[in-house]
């Protein structure tokens, strides 16, 4: 029997770490890179990466966790729908514990709401087909990685002629979020560790304008610890060279143009719309709404939900955490009132959230105090 089989060798990790250390020594100032993907957040913490980083290189977690960037208003709408006794609400597991203005889906379920955790959007369509007398709503959350699946669900429901299926869409686009961060005056990011999964769909080329307009180096990477280290080494080297470049270290999965079929299906069903983000506010053309041809699958119109409102917990600094303005330990609630058992903010709820990752995994040595913002 073999032990954990990881798709890397020890030699590669050591080599990348050495490159990172050498490049870090050549830096004239401390640098901060940002990843914008929950899987990168988790992977980095799980492999203890932060305990291996040179002192002058910091990896921040940006707005990459789909649960964390979902606005309080969107969460409240989900909970409102779940409380409707005619509704079966289907959701990916992570949304279950997110706390809205009043409770979470998990609490609604314990109180009798019909909330189902699904692994695929098509499971929700199947449920709707099997239960014609129930209103089945799918909580369509996530970035470009999960959007094609939501689009496929709508197309399938349409093909089956289902009258009892709809989605509550809060899908978001990653590029507008990266732009917003680079344009904000109080956040300084020296380069992006770009998300491999999203890039598989949208392609490498779409990051080029970020590099050109903002002179911010971008390196696309996979999700294993050694792949992240290799990307950080490359980002540091680019800063040392004073060069803003786009590099694709995940070329086995990411092409220049991306997955055209997935892009086509997204375009068929959704159209960009201005969207409210936690921590970033309302960003132009940053979310996706159903095209008019599929409007009848929009749960917001179907259940007459109106525009989302909702107030964030005033003490909670999730918005600052996901924009790199603060680290979890800067938040007064962190590990005191807010823990994974009783989470107040989405970053503590989600297994991909920065706060939960800090709480759960942070290396044993005293955490390096990270200066937030600039």
């Amino acid at each position, binding site marked *: *029997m073999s032990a954990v089989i990881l798709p890397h060798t020890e030699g590669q990790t050591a080599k990348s770490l050495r490159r990172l250390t050498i490049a870090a020594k050549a830096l004239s100032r401390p640098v901060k890179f940002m990843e914008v993907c929950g899987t990168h957040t988790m992977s980095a913490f799980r492999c203890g990466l932060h305990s291996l980083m040179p002192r002058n290189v910091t990896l921040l977690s940006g707005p990459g966790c789909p*649960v964390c960037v979902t606005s309080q208003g969107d969460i409240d709408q989900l909970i409102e729908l779940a409380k409707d006794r005619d509704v079966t609400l289907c959701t990916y597991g*992570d949304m279950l514990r997110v706390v809205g203005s009043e409770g979470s889906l998990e*609490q609604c379920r314990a109180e009798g709401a019909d909330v189902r955790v699904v*692994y695929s959007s098509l499971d929700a369509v199947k449920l709707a087909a099997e239960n014609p007398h129930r209103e089945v709503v799918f909580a369509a*959350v996530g970035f470009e990685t999960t959007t094609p699946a939501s689009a496929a669900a709508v197309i399938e429901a349409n093909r089956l002629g289902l009258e009892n299926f709809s989605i509550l869409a809060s899908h978001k686009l990653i590029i507008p979020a990266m732009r917003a961060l680079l344009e904000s005056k109080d956040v300084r990011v020296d380069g992006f560790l770009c998300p491999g999964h999203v890039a598989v769909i949208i392609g490498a080329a779409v990051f080029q304008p970020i590099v050109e307009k903002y002179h911010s180096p971008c390196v696309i990477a996979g999700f294993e*610890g050694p792949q992240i280290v290799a990307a950080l080494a490359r980002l540091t080297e680019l800063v040392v060279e004073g060069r803003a470049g786009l590099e694709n270290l995940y070329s086995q999965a990411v092409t220049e143009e991306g997955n055209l079929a997935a892009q086509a299906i997204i375009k068929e069903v959704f159209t960009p719309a201005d969207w409210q983000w936690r921590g970033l506010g309302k960003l132009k053309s940053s979310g996706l709404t159903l095209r008019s041809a599929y409007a009848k699958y929009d749960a917001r119109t179907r259940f007459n939900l109106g525009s989302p409102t909702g107030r964030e917990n005033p003490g909670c600094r999730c918005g600052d955490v996901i924009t790199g303005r603060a680290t979890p330990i800067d938040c007064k609630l962190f590990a005191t009132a807010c823990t994974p*058992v009783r989470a107040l903010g989405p970053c503590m709820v989600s297994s991909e959230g920065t706060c939960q990752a800090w709480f759960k995994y942070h290396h044993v040595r005293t955490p390096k105090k990270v200066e937030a913002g600039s």
Partner: protein
Amino acid sequence: MISANNLANSGITPATGQRISLAHGGGGQLTDDLLASCVLPRLANRALNELLDSALLPGVERLALTIDSYVVQPLKFPGGDIGRLAVCGTVNDLAVCGARPLGIALSLILTEGLERRTLEDILDSIAAAASEANVCIVTGDTKVVGRGQGDGIYITTAGVGAAGPHKLHPDAVRAGDMLIVSGTIADHGMAVMLAREMPQVQSALKSDVAPLNHMIEQLLRQVPGVVFLRDPTRGGLAGVAADLAARTGLHLTLLEENIPVRPETWHAADMLGIDPLDIANEGKIVVVVRPGSVDQALDALCADKHGTDARIIGIFGKQNDGICELRTCMGGSRILQKPYGEQLPRIC
């Protein structure tokens, strides 16, 4: 394993909300929380407060008593079924306390409409597992509830055992002691999760559910330096390791590269964004052993068919911080905590 006192001081907040949620049954921090805030304040006594796998009862002869309920879905899964699970779980809870199983009481709660054939298959499986463990089902009870009030079949098994001379207790653990796991982790939890949530996925994953009393008996007979045993069921290896660190107050360091995980289990967990360390096992034990007895313990475990992949995975250090630290394959370090509750897959 967390004592009532420990929990009161742990800063864990009271159970979320006013209703029981599925997460309260996950064997993680929320389960501890429910026990501490709801059960123990009402039922506390010396034997119960220890929260060991079996209670060691004083008397003419020391007796071990344990009880467990099984509500797994699906009823049959690759590598086992609810019947085998109910017998093995109770046998193992006795065995890890150093007790020899004497008899099992079996309670069946059946749902109206359950197919007789299904019940017979599960009873056959109970008989086979009991025979494997060399223990008898000595008494029982059967109830039937109406359609919609249950989910096929629920089983409760209580086991009584003769406690041996070994004093297996976390208080005996000291710096320098080693941690051994008897084989690959997370096989049961991942096999059941895949069978339940993604029945369409073809996989080689199989539950490890097995009675471990013979292996444990040999281990205790041959190795004098065994200090403590635990079966890492719900809450997984992480739950047991974090508990051990907290309960002993020592620093426990685990080496990730030594922890055996089957590639298929690792990939399934990776796909669902779940940490294999948090996943339940039903045919593995964690052994704390004095450093001088490590080789003997490994030999004893490896000689049994359920322990062939046994490895040393950790060591207790001198620092009195009660933290469990994982040294990762990549050379990094992170804290290992008890999981929260229900294991949920990630979004992206």
